[in-house]
């Protein structure tokens, strides 16, 4: 049997205006996609605190999908660019922590792109399936995990945040 | 010194020898160095693609793979990633293989699997495939060309004939337009020529149809020649060996087919450049065309020495009407 039985768990962050509506549209249009993603609605992808991603990964998610409006179409004018910058910085942080940066993916989906949302979701699930379960915290990396879990949010990010956010604002 | 890799293509060695000869004369004045890709092979023209896809693309890609080997050795410092082709069909094939191997990764993978049988590999996107005209207009520049003109072609009424495979499909948006590009017009104008607006400039010459469906091809050739003639052109300027061949070599037969008497010479644009740069017709392969450009060039005082005209094995039979021509069906029946 070559069938891969690993079913990844993925947390998806969506913005209220575009990508959550894309997910709604995928539903209304009865498009089928992989059931592994569980969505959290925020007002804007700019709301995404990188800590949320780390929290999800440390609490059992194998991957995190961040979705927002296309560049130039943000409901809040340009906050998705900030999400983009945070995403790029976050990938760097993840690498430093020994987590495959590919476990986090940023997808732009307009309210009209239900099909894109569905396709990207399914594709991401497959990518994570290939990566396998996130072993973070299950071996010697556990210390770091506890750090994140126990602190009211993330120590790691907090330590870097000032420089991190300065780049976001740039 | 502007250095590039050169993929000459099969015609440059035979039917379009004049193209190569004249190209060689303009290299030095324009400070151009072209390094031929070693052991290049035929690009398959428009034939191989229709027979078998993967071998066709592999055939093309072998050239690209070989070119990448020479990429850095072009000169000591830096090298070039640009491959230039003087032939439009070769240009399109090379550019297309590069483009599609990227657009369709499955194709790229299969082609590379085939190449690996010969110990080669080509990573799509590595090279820039460009046509000679593109290099001259956009890299060398019209001003630089203008500066080298010692014998302006003033009064030479010429139609610029771009042909089809150069401006289309234009994957990398290199040309000003798909329908009426102006690059060749601008270049000829820089040589001082009297450039005629030629709406047919990107119409097809018939390509391989001269071989497989001559009636179709003759009509396309007729349109082009008639269009040039009606606009008062002395001659046409070509950028592709296939265009030049079809319009030059099949003009006689086209005339016979339609009972017309056009005499529309067609020269390579490099031959005109050579003339403008002060070279003599003989150095530029002028005289090798079947429809002689002698009278056309006489308009600007260029004398083309008389070479031996092709002996016609059959006398012209203008006095009596031609027998009704065969349809292809009748012809086949007759052979049976």
């Amino acid at each position, binding site marked *: 049997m070559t069938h891969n039985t690993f079913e990844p768990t993925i947390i998806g962050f969506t913005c209220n205006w575009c990508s959550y509506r894309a997910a709604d549209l995928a539903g209304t249009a009865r498009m089928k996609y992989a059931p592994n993603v569980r969505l959290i609605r*925020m007002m804007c992808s700019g709301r995404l605190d990188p800590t949320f991603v780390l929290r999800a990964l440390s*609490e059992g998610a194998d991957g995190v999908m961040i979705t927002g409006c296309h560049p130039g179409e943000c*409901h809040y004018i340009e906050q998705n660019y900030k999400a983009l910058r945070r995403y790029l910085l976050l990938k760097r942080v993840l690498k430093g922590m020994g987590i495959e940066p590919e476990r986090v993916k940023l997808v732009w989906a307009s309210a009209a792109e239900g099909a894109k949302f569905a396709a990207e979701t399914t594709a991401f699930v497959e990518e994570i399936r290939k990566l396998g379960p996130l072993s973070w915290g299950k071996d010697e990396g556990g210390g770091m995990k506890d750090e994140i879990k126990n602190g009211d949010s993330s120590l790691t990010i907090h330590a870097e945040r000032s420089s991190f956010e300065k780049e*976001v604002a740039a | 010194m502007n250095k590039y890799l050169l993929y000459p293509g099969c015609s440059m060695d035979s039917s379009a020898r004049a193209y190569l000869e004249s190209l060689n004369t303009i290299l030095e004045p324009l400070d151009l160095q072209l390094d031929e890709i070693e052991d290049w092979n035929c690009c398959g023209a428009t034939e191989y693609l229709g027979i078998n896809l993967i071998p066709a693309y592999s055939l093309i890609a072998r050239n690209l793979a070989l070119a990448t080997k020479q990429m850095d050795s072009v000169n000591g410092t830096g090298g070039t990633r640009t491959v230039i082709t003087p032939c439009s069909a070769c240009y399109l094939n090379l550019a297309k293989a590069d483009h599609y191997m990227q657009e369709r990764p499955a194709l790229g993978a299969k082609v590379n699997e085939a190449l690996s049988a010969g110990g080669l590999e080509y990573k799509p996107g590595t090279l820039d495939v460009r046509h000679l005209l593109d290099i001259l207009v956009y890299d060398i520049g019209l001003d630089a060309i203008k500066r080298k003109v010692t014998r302006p072609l003033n009064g030479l009424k010429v139609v610029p004939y771009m042909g089809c495979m150069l401006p289309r499909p234009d994957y990398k948006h290199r040309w000003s337009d798909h329908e009426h590009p102006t690059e060749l017009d601008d270049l000829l104008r820089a040589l001082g020529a009297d450039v005629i607006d030629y709406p047919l400039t990107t119409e097809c010459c018939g390509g391989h149809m001269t071989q497989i469906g001559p009636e179709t091809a003759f009509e396309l050739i007729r349109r082009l020649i*008639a269009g040039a003639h009606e606009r008062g052109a002395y001659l046409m300027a070509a950028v592709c060996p296939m265009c030049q061949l079809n319009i030059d070599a099949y003009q006689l037969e086209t005339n016979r087919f339609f009972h017309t008497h056009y005499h529309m010479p067609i020269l390579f644009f490099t031959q005109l450049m050579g003339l403008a740069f002060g070279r003599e017709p003989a150095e530029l392969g002028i005289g090798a065309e079947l429809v002689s450009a002698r009278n056309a060039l006489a308009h600007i005082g260029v004398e083309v020495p008389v070479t031996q005209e092709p002996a016609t094995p059959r006398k012209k039979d203008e006095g009596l009407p031609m027998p009704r021509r065969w349809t292809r069906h009748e012809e086949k029946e007759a052979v049976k």
Partner: protein
Amino acid sequence: MTERVGVYVCHCGSNIAGVVDVVDVANWAAEKLGRRGVIIARDYKFMCSSLGQELIEKDIKELGLTRIVVAACSPHLHEKTFRIAAKNAGLNPYLVELASIREQVSWVHTDKAVATAKAKAVVSGAVSRVIENQALEEIKVPINPNTLIVGGGIAGIQAALEIANAGFHVYLVEREPSIGGHMSQFDKTFPTLDCSACILTPRMVEAGTHPNITLLTWSEVTKVTGYVGNFNVTIKKKARFVNEELCTGCGICQEKCPKKVIDEVYEAGLGYRKAVYTPFAQAVPNFPVMDKENCTYFIKGTCKACEKFCPTGAIDFKQEDQLINLDVGNVILATGYDLFDARRVRNDGYGRLPNVFTSLEFERLSNAAGPTNGNIVLRDGKSTPKSVGIIHCVGSRDRNFNNYCSVICCMQGLKFAHLVHERTGATVYNFYIDMRTAYKAYDEFYQRVLEEGTLFVRGKVAEVTDAARNEREKGKLIIQVEDTLASKQRRIPVDMVILSSGLQPRRDSKDVGKLFGISCSTDGWFTEKHPKLDPVATMTEGIFIAGCAQGPKDIPSSVAQGAAASARVLDKILQKEVALEPVRASVDKATCSGCRICNGLCPFNAISFIEDDQVTEINPALCQGCGTCVAACPAGAISGTGFSNEQIIAQIDGLLMKNLEMV
């Protein structure tokens, strides 16, 4: 944990229950989420029905529920419904959370077991989150009764008149010297063929003289701040060099002005105007403007013919641009469209072949007040065409240009066919891909044009060329096309070609969208709040859209949208105040370290730094609630209501089924 949570799982008929085992989900929630405070979990056929709502209201009252989770459809559909139900039962509406198990589960998955498991996770997430929800109060702000309308085309005029007639003041801003828009350039309007000017100019005059309408022509909006009910707008009134107080609109300055200029705007490049001009005779207002770029005085320093002859001394060369500041409560954007530039379709030959005309050129050509007095002639200005080809879908429905259908071009093409036929008797060909004559009396018009003998060729024109192949084609424009119904390539020689060019968003629509804080589709049309149910509102409260700015449409639809937008504005004005979603960020001054990292993040300028206290402050009236600053604050000093860190982290944990007694 003291919260008492009620979970309600909706069947939605079979929409949810067909895929998700709703009974299992409810039982599971009652059993497994008890520790988190779920004291009751029910399933019901239609939660959104009045009976379903009553069920919740009853439980709130009888069981003392303090939190509600409804597992049903998307919150965008029924969040409001259940919030009102909670409110009716005395519970703060923001203590209700929707778990979308229809759009996100039953409609997108097929495997029952997997779908049910995911539904449980989604419910678990919502339960964890709702416990962290806080009671919030709607934010109420007063509404300024004045309205700004941008764009004085037919949609803007209609909207302005409706609001003005209802007794409220309107500022109508128009970029050009006169209101009227594209409609003022047309000759006839389809399908009834009323004369465009005859139906439009009375409306223009009404708008121009209405006591409740302030016309600001030759003006543009440069800055917008504020929010629904309380916008502050800066408008640049460009110098006219004509004193509007003194000018009587007599027109002598235009007569005397020696400088003739090609009119690229109103006459679509086919006619001329002077350097001081009103674009057309019935312009509203009828004060001229001076075109500084072309005025001899401004170029050479002498002339002043207009000044010399003006009987009222209204010419004022020293006039300067003026900035006007207005407070308005609502805005309607009716900024219209640009015509697709047909030169881009090289194979149609526009710009290269003289007798290829665009639709707008033809409108001027056929207009009795146009440069040829309504004579349909070739570019030479005198020959009447004997055969005319009208090409549909120019620049539309084409991935090389605009992907969308421009809606009006088919009917426009038919109108042209009729006019050419009527005025010249020429043979008319229409080349179309699909004939789109939807709406009232449109197809009947198609029938009429068929009856008149117009020849229809189904096929997208491949090229228009002057390269003749035979005697018949010599001196003509040859339209080469596949007649797809005959499956044959045809070459049809004609004297004149008219391109039914498509509509496209204004060049600067994206900038205007940004100015007013609304978004554009990828094509550049303003995005409506809901494509079906809320076509004139936008995602930004208090900003409405009407007419072609929202997407290509014909005159009746533009007028309808103008009226619809005005109704929405009146609704807002009459409410006198507006409730805003209480999703806002605020700074805890005690924890703010004054690092100012958040200061540059807000596009609405809600964040400011108080130098005295060395802390940051957020203006709740300007804050739109995106939460970017909340995520950015390194000190955790900024919190956002409705989407707090606690809520989101709880939802993450819940979705991942943490702290559950799992089987």
